[in-house]
């Protein structure tokens, strides 16, 4: 038995934490907000967000949602920027291992609850799974209309011209819609929603997704949801239709096409590689024998891709 496991056991014996940290009344309150959110797809439900033992910006909203829906038989996966092994993912996974003692995994297919920051897994999710998003700023209209009273009214009256003003500005300044993340969507032909800071590459996955999507914003105290198989349309203009990012090379490690790639700087001489942002997907493909051009040794392959200084 490792030290960590021993500490965990002793905590559970002493009953220091309630299951999944939050007390049961708080969970009920959050579940009510979640149910309301599911009933009104895309509507931001205010909830009494709690102080969590981590700073705002670390995913306190997502953590509270996960804590409220987590059961003892659930298997939890934590993603940060597509990866299972970055600080945020490791810390939050550790948090739930410690406070709930649930099974955790890095494999998308195995998880029943996936909490994510920024990415939606490349592997299609099923109706048995729930995707929980950590949201920093839930209000898509915020940057153009600072008054909360006004944005709420705009949602209530479906007064969404302003959202297109933002897209208009994009085209006027850049010649195309330059918003690449937190790209506004219209849910079920009613509410305009900010799909958290996910890259717009993932927007098509939100549309009619089989899994339930829950969005939690801890600092802003809002929860919203997209029920399974709900229509979600990315906003655009008739002559400037919505399009996702294109990558001209496959993943350097697993050779996957049509996935979202991260740029990895290899040295200070312009060496770089592009790899799957979804680390689990990449590993699984490599285990199946798919190899990208730099799979053997990224450092050795870098001569080939080095760009002129």
């Amino acid at each position, binding site marked *: 038995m490792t030290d960590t496991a021993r500490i965990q056991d002793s905590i559970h014996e002493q009953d220091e934490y309630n299951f999944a940290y939050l007390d049961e009344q708080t969970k009920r309150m959050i579940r009510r907000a979640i149910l309301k959110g599911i009933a009104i797809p895309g509507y931001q439900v205010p909830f009494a967000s709690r102080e969590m033992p981590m700073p705002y910006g670390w995913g306190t909203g997502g953590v509270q949602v996960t804590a409220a829906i987590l059961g003892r038989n659930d298997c939890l996966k934590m993603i940060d920027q597509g990866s299972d092994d970055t600080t945020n993912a490791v810390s939050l996974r550790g948090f739930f291992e410690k406070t709930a003692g649930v099974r955790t995994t890095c494999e998308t297919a195995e998880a029943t609850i996936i909490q994510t920051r920024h990415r939606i897994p490349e592997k299609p999710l099923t109706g048995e799974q729930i995707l929980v998003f950590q949201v920093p700023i839930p209000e898509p209209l915020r940057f*153009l209309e600072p008054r909360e009273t006004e944005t709420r*009214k705009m949602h209530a009256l479906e*007064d969404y*011209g*302003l959202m*297109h003003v933002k897209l*208009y500005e994009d085209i006027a300044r850049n010649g195309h819609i330059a918003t690449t993340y937190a790209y506004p969507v219209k849910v079920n032909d009613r509410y305009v929603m900010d799909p958290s800071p996910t890259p717009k590459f993932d927007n098509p996955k939100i549309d009619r997704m089989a899994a339930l999507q829950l969005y939690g914003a801890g600092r802003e105290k809002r929860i919203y949801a997209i029920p399974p198989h709900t229509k979600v349309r990315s906003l655009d203009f008739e002559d400037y239709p919505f399009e996702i990012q294109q990558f001209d090379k496959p993943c350097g490690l697993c050779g996957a096409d049509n996935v979202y790639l991260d740029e990895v700087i290899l040295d200070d001489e312009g060496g770089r590689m592009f790899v799957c942002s979804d680390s689990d997907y990449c590993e699984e493909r490599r285990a199946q024998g798919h190899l990208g051009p730099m799979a053997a040794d990224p450092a050795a392959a870098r001569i080939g891709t080095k760009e002129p200084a």
Partner: protein
Amino acid sequence: MTLFHAEDPLLQVRNVTRYYGDRIGCSEVSFDLWPGEVLAIVGESGSGKTTLLNCLSTRLAPTAGAIEYRMRDGAMRNLYQLSEAERRLLMRTDWGFVHQNAADGLRMNVSAGANVGERLMAVGARHYGNIRSAADDWLGRVEIDSDRIDDDPRSFSGGMRQRLQIARNLVTQPRLVFMDEPTGGLDVSVQARLLDLLRRLVADLGLSVVIVTHDLAVARLLSHRIMVMRQGNVIETGLTDQVLDDPREPYTQLLVSSILQV
């Protein structure tokens, strides 16, 4: 000029009263406004003209009284019995509101083109090219160069901002425009140019206008009819020339005689 060709009033105001606690903002104001008519509300600061304008434009609920507006379908509707959604639609299609301070009426952090296009997008325009050409057209009509279409209003002079605000309001072809001291804070040559422009647009588009001003020269140039307010009450109304050339009330006489002569 063909003025009052239409048969029915566009706006019917009856006994509009607004109290701020015990104090009177405006009291028992009644008038009719016909299509194509420009009505000036004049008076000194604190006389209740802006309160009245805000009541008329549904920005401030009156304490008592009724305001009816003829919708595009010809039916008279009480403005304060409309739903908020209907009122908003009215404000961004059939109406315009030109603020004294252009920054209140513009989005200062988006380009001039987006400022003009916002109303179009709000009523459902989703074709970038069309929105942009409409914006370009309107900038031209208010004498702003095409190459400023992607600039922020922050980089515009006071007069340009005011003209941009006017373009932004007129792009949906409203029938009624409220103006609160549209020339306030502009120097006289810029004022003259703006007044010229307003006069032309109002005549070309057959707009009805309710304009609040303390500047009798503005009232003289733009308006057909004038309403003089003092301490929340309307003390004199009539045709502009008649009131200004032959004021009846002592207070109006005082106002007219206090215009600086150069």
